[in-house]
C-alpha cells in the first residue's frame, strides 16, 4: 500500500477547475516530484493534500487514513508536513518561536527541545539566529526555517512547494542536499518544482501536470530522457 495516494481528485475554485481528476501515489521512502508549468495545478494538489482546499471529488489516502474531508490541523497530526510556496514563515516571530509553532501539537518540552536541536543540526545557520525575527532572515535562511518548521512535526511525508523559488543557485543546491539527506534518514518527500532539472536529479519518480491533469509519469531517469519533458521543462534543443 502506498504511503500517499490521490484518487481522481478534483479541485474547483468557483467555476474554475484547477485539478481534473489527478491520481498519483507516493511510496514510503521515495522522493516524488511534480512538474508542470505555472497554473498546471501543482500547488493546488499540495493544498488539497494538506486540507487547505477541499477537493470537490476524489479521495486522498495517507496509508490507510482517509484525509479527504479532514480539517488542516487534523491532517498535520496524521503526519503531513507542508512547506508552503513563498516560504510564509511568521515574520515577526523569532526563529525559535517559528519552530515551536511547527510542533504546535507537541506538549512535551523535552521532546520539543530534541526536535529543535535536530533542525539546528540540519541547518546550523538557524541556530546562530535563533532569537532573530523570521522576517529579518535572508531568503535562503527563510526557506530553511520553513522546512525546519515543517520537520518539527516529524512528518511521515513532507510536501514542498517550490523550495528553490527566488534563491541563488548555491543556496538551491544546499537546500536540495538537505532534502536528499532527509530522504536518506527516512523522510518521504513530495516535491513541487519549476526547476525540473534539479528536481529530477534527486527524485526517484515524477509526474507531469498540465492544466490540471497528469499527462506523463515514470522514473526520474525516464522522464529526464523523455523528449517531451526535455523540450518543455529542461529547455533542451
Amino acid at each position, binding site marked *: 500500500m502506498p504511503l500517499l495516494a490521490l484518487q481522481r481528485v478534483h479541485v474547483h475554485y468557483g467555476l474554475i477547475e484547477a485539478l481534473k481528476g489527478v491520481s498519483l501515489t507516493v511510496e514510503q521512502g521515495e522522493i516524488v516530484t511534480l512538474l508542470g508549468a505555472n497554473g498546471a495545478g501543482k500547488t493546488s494538489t499540495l493544498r488539497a493534500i*494538506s*486540507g*487547505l482546499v477541499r477537493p470537490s471529488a476524489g479521495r486522498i489516502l495517507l496509508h490507510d487514513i482517509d484525509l479527504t474531508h479532514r*480539517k*488542516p*490541523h487534523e491532517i*498535520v*497530526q496524521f503526519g503531513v508536513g*507542508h512547506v*508552503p510556496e513563498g516560504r*510564509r*514563515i*511568521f*515574520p*515577526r*516571530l*523569532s526563529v525559535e*518561536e517559528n519552530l*515551536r*509553532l*511547527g510542533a*504546535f*501539537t507537541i*506538549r512535551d518540552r523535552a521532546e520539543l527541545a530534541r526536535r529543535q536541536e535536530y533542525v539546528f543540526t540540519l541547518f546550523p545557520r538557524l541556530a546562530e539566529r535563533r*532569537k532573530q*525575527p523570521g522576517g529579518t532572515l535572508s531568503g535562503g535562511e527563510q526557506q530553511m526555517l520553513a522546512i525546519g*518548521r515543517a520537520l518539527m*512535526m516529524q512528518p511521515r511525508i513532507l510536501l514542498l512547494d517550490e523550495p528553490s523559488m527566488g534563491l541563488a543557485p548555491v543556496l538551491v543546491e544546499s537546500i536540495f542536499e538537505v532534502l536528499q539527506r532527509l530522504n536518506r534518514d527516512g523522510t518521504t518527500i513530495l516535491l513541487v518544482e519549476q526547476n525540473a532539472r534539479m528536481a529530477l536529479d534527486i527524485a526517484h519518480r515524477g509526474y507531469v501536470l498540465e492544466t490540471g491533469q497528469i499527462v506523463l509519469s515514470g522514473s526520474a531517469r525516464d522522464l529526464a530522457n523523455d523528449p517531451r519533458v526535455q523540450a518543455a521543462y529542461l529547455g533542451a534543443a
Partner: protein
Amino acid sequence: MIVHTVRRAVFIGLVTGIAAWHLSLVGLIPAFAQRRLVGDTVTFSYALLVTLLVLAAYATGRRYPGATQRIPWGMLSALSAGLMFFLLALVLTHLNLRQILLNATPELARVLTFGSGATIVGLVRVLLISLLSGLFTGALSALPYPWGRVIVSAALMTLLLGLLRDVLGPLLPRGVTSFLYGPAGLSLAGALVVFLLAAALFALRWSRRANGVTARAAAAVPSTFRQPVTRAVLLLILASVPFWAGLFLSNVADFVGFYILMGLGLNLVLGFAGLLDLGYVAFFAVGAYTMAVLTSPEVGQRFTLDFWVALPIAVVATVFAGLLVGLPVLRMRGDYLAIATLGFGEIVRLLVLSDWLKPYLGGAQGVTRIARPNIASWRIDSPQEFYFLILVSCLFAWFLSIRLRDSRLGRAWFAIREDEHVAQAMGINRVTAKLSAFAIGASFGGLSGALFASLVGSVVPASFSLLVSINVVALLVLGGMGSLPGVLVGALALVGIPELLREFQEYRLLLYGMVLIAMMLFRPAGLFPERIHRRELEEAVEEAREIAPAEIATGRG
C-alpha cells in the same frame, strides 16, 4: 536655489497658518483662552499658537545642517505663519462671519494677535513673537545633543504642570502649592523653579543613560531581588491612590480602570490574535446590563440578586456573547471582520434602546438602582472604595493576559495573527483559537461593564455608543498592539488626560485624529511596542550569560 528655499519656507509657514485657522475656527484655540498656564499672560491658547510657530520653524529648519541656515529660514517660516494668524484676525475684525462660523468672534481675533487685536500694534506683536519663535527654534535645534531636547522637554513639563493646576494643587502640601501656583496656572517664580528642576532632571537622566550608569546600577542588584521590590513599590503606590487622590481623581482613576480592563480584553482579540473587533462596546454593554437586570428591582421579574452573585453571571453572559459574535465571523478577516463586528456593537445598543425590550431592559430611560457590593459589613459605595475592586480586577486581568501570552493558546493566536493559513498547516485549530480569543476577550469587557454599572448605579443606552469601541481601539494603537504596558499608557493618555482637562471634551475626536496620525507617522508600533522590548531584554540576559563564563575562564587563565 535660493528661490526654492524661500518658497519652501513660506509654504510650510502658510500650511501651519492654515492649520491654525482650522483649529481657531473649530473653536479649539478660543476655548483655551481662559486657561492660564503661567502667570497672567501665558494662556493655553497662546501656548498652542507658539507651538505651531515653533513646529513650522522646526519643519523648515531641520533640513539644513547649521544654525546659520536654520535660524533665518525657520524665522521666515514662522513669520509667514504669524502673518496668517494676523490675516485671520483682520478678517474677523472687519467681517462678520458668525452666521457661518460660530467661533469667528472678535475675541478670537484678540487671541490670534496675542491680546492686541487687529491693529498695527497687534501686527507688530504677532510678527515679533513669530520671529522670536523662529530664532529660538533654530538656536535650540543647533545646540549640541541633548541640550535642545532637554530644554524642550522641560518647557513642555512646565506647561503640563500649569495645565494640571486644579488637579495637582490640592494634592501637594499647602506651602508648595501656594508657592508654585498663582490664582490660575503657575506663578512666575513657580514656573521658573519647575522649568529649572525639570531641565536638571532630564539632563541628569540623559547623562546617566549616556554613561550606562542605570544599566550598571541595575546589574549590580540581582533581578530576582529587584523585580519583586519594584513590583511591590508600584503596587503600594497604586493601592494608595484613594487615600491621597480625593473624590474627583479617584473617579477618573476608576474610569481609567474600566478602560484598562476593556483594553486588556480587546488586546487579546486584536493585539494577540489580530482580529479587528470594532464592536467591543457590545461586551461592555452586556456586562453592564446583566448586572443591572439581575440586581435592580426596577425591571424584569422584579427579583434582585446580590452583587457578588450577579458578577460571575455577568461575566459568563459576556463569554456567551463573545461566542455569539465569534461564530458567524470566523471566516472573516480584516475589513470585513471590522464591519461585521461594528454591526454587532450597534445591534446591542439598538436592542437595549428598543421599546420592544423596554419591560426587561428599560429602553431609553435605562435601569437605575443597581446594587453595590458588600464585603461583610463594609458597603463599597464611593468611587474611592470602588477603586480597590477595579484595581483587583485589573491586576487579575493583567496576570491572566501574561499567562495567556506565554501559553500554547497565546502562541496559536500569534500564529493566526501572522498568517492564518500557515497557522492551520501547523496544526492549529482555527475555530477554537479564534473563539477562545473572542470569548476570553469579551469576558474582560463584561467584567468592566458590570463594575461600571454598579459604580454608576444606573445604565442608559447612551453610555454604550460606538465611541467606546473607538476609544478602546485607539488606546491599543496608541500604546502598541499586543503590549500590556501599552494598554496602561494608552488608557491613561486617552481616558485619563481628557477627563482631567474638561475643555478637551468637545475636541476629543479632533485630537484623537491628530494623535493617531502622528502615531502612524512617528511611532507606528505604539508608545510601548511589546515584542521589541521583550527581545531587547532577552538579548541583554543572553549577553550577560555569555560574558559570565568568559570572565571565569580568563580569571583561571
